[in-house]
């Protein structure tokens, strides 16, 4: 079946982590449906998960941005986080590699386990965590260095290569995996910020996988790209899903449908529904999910 047919519209939500968005007021269509805190419909849990997240709460100062969310993320699966703007997708995603640490007012509560290790344990080494859990951002953010130095950045700081030739291999391998090798091999030493937006984003993906992470977090990786570049990145995500666990935030439901195997729907900080992607988009169990995917609000 073609899932795209069931999707009526896709909400456009330009958003920035640093500028707090006003919470959308629950609109008329959703008023009858209430979320019960901590109750997630569908199948949030899995056997032997990569991430085991229980009763997660995130506060910005006094404001509770994530409300009692419990979720398992399986090994080598692609899970998509969808939901209206400001519902906490980015916030939740950034808990998984502790990028929230750099926001002073942000506090995280609950149990967050990566392979049975507590991510937020006071002795946990953030450097090691982030080497295992890579991240790709909404806006391509290559360093103003050469393409080669961008990809080699992570391996260098983690001491992954003993010799220049090893580093060369890592760079080539990562660029190949990111589908950028053919375009970049002749200009490895020219500045990365001179590439097109789509190439830059694939470079950022190459940069993230150069440190051989186990998980790649992607926060709306295509929202700054044109449709052709988007298609390339989506293709890339599908290829990467064979060897990595990928968690992707997206505001495009078509994209979620195309690349993910499971989908989690967030609403005002609640995790409303989690299920196989095909299930969520064809027969959502929760009323709010249905309103969202049929485009009644976003």
């Amino acid at each position: 079946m073609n899932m795209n047919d069931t999707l009526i519209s896709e909400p456009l939500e330009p958003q920035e982590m640093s500028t707090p968005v006003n919470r959308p007021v629950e609109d008329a269509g959703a008023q009858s449906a209430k979320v019960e805190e901590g109750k997630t419909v569908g199948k949030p849990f899995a056997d032997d998960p990569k991430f085991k997240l229980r009763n997660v709460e995130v506060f910005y100062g006094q404001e509770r941005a994530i409300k009692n969310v419990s979720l398992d993320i399986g090994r080598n699966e692609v899970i998509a986080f969808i939901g209206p703007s400001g519902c906490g997708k980015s916030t939740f995603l950034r808990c998984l590699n502790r990028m929230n640490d750099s926001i002073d007012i942000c506090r995280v509560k609950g149990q967050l386990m990566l392979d049975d290790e507590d991510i937020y344990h006071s002795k946990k080494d953030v450097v090691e965590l982030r080497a295992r859990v890579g991240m790709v951002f909404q806006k391509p953010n290559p360093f103003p260095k050469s393409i080669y130095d961008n990809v080699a950045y992570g391996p260098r700081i983690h001491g992954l290569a003993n010799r220049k030739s090893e580093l060369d291999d890592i760079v080539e391998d990562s660029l190949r995996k990111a589908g950028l090798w053919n375009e970049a091999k002749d200009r490895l030493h020219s500045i990365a910020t001179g590439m097109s937006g789509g190439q830059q984003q694939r470079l950022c993906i190459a940069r993230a996988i150069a440190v051989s992470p186990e998980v790649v977090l992607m926060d709306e990786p295509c929202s700054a790209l044109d449709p052709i570049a988007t298609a390339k990145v989506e293709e890339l995500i599908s290829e990467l899903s064979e060897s990595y666990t990928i968690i992707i935030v997206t505001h495009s439901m078509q994209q979620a449908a195309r690349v993910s195997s499971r989908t989690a729907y967030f609403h005002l900080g609640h995790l409303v529904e989690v299920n196989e992607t095909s299930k969520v988009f064809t027969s959502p169990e929760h009323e709010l999910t249905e309103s969202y995917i049929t485009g009644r609000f976003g």
Partner: protein
Amino acid sequence: MQPANLFFLILALIFTAYVLGYFRSKALARPLGGVRHLKSLPGYYAVRAALWCGIPALIILVLWASFENQIIQMLVLGTLAPEIVPASPGEASLLMSQINNIASGALSSGSVDASLVNAAELLTNLRQNSNTYMTMLVLSIAVLAGFVGWYRIQPKLNAREQVEIILRWFFFSCAAVAIMTTVGIVFSVFFETVRFFGMVSFTDFFFGTSWSPQVALRADQVGSGGAFGMIPLFTGTLLISAIALLVAVPVGLFSAIYLSEYANKHVRSVVKPLLELLAGVPTVVYGFFAALTVAPFIANFAQTLGMNASSQSALAAGLVMGIMIIPFVSSLSDDVINAVPQSLRDGSLALGSTQSETMKKVIFPAALPGIMGGILLAASRAIGETMIVVMAAGLAANLTANPLQSVTTVTVQIVTLLIGDQEFDSPKTLAAFALGAMLFIVTLLLNVIALKIVRKYREQYD
């Protein structure tokens, strides 16, 4: 009336013209059915009337005030008998001051020529009347022109356009004043420099290693020629500036890094203004701090180490100057570090680098051009600094690289050359202009390079 009082009176007239113009345009608009039937808003008609009233009157006032003395002098001298009419401008000014003295009663009129006494009377007369004439002329022009401006207000008149044109010329002339002043200074410096090189050869100046610019009073005096080798001065300047930069660059840069990357908002809001306060301390205060506290301390300290330090040393001046220019480095570096997008920090942190690795490998390289710009600006400030050096480094033109010795700099020598009685065409005085020109070229080059670098850096992220 005094020109100052007259000026305020004109301001009052301008205001009156504004108010009257405003009401006239309103009144004209009423029968037409409102302000929107006028070509311009009432405010523009009012400003136009005010400008009509003010500009001609103020121009006349300024011209009169600046040329009054010359015209009076011309009139007074014109009445003198032909045989005592002065031949040269020098004689004329002598004669004028004589006449002045007679007029003020300092010179008794009995002891001088009768025609001079007459001239003195005329002078007194003209002076008194000139004021009256000026007041009358200026006020009548203001009133007349203001009236014309007011009377000519018509619904069809495009006052807005006229006001815009006048304002454009006004702003242009303000800018022109600043530019012309700079150009004037540059030209006078360069003309005097050319004269200097007419007396002292290029090689003596640029490659001479001895500086002792005395000029002989008697031809047979020892060292009568003077020596104008600029090398000891430029090495002195270089030495002190280098010491200053050695202090200011690391301290300024690291405090900028601390402020922008590590300090929380609260600390930052307190520390940053405090740091910038350093630039606001008068240099003379730094000067006596250097001379009375730092220099003796260095001398004593060197002595306990068994070294010989003079009581005034390049080190003392350089250290204190370094403290003074810290804010130049820190403030600009802080700005450019802050301008590096947060997304680059996030990207680096997300790859598992620590805060200091992120700083060292991503932010610093990205901000480097801007930081270089800041350092160059600080350097040109250090080169031009005078007060601290006069007070703490001494006046002796030693050619040395030893920071414990006393040295002197280009700026200090310019000051000493021009202090005291001057002969305007001696090489000693003109040497100041030559040094000034050199200094001007060096700092100009530094500034141009710095601005180029900073601009290039800005483009990178805009």
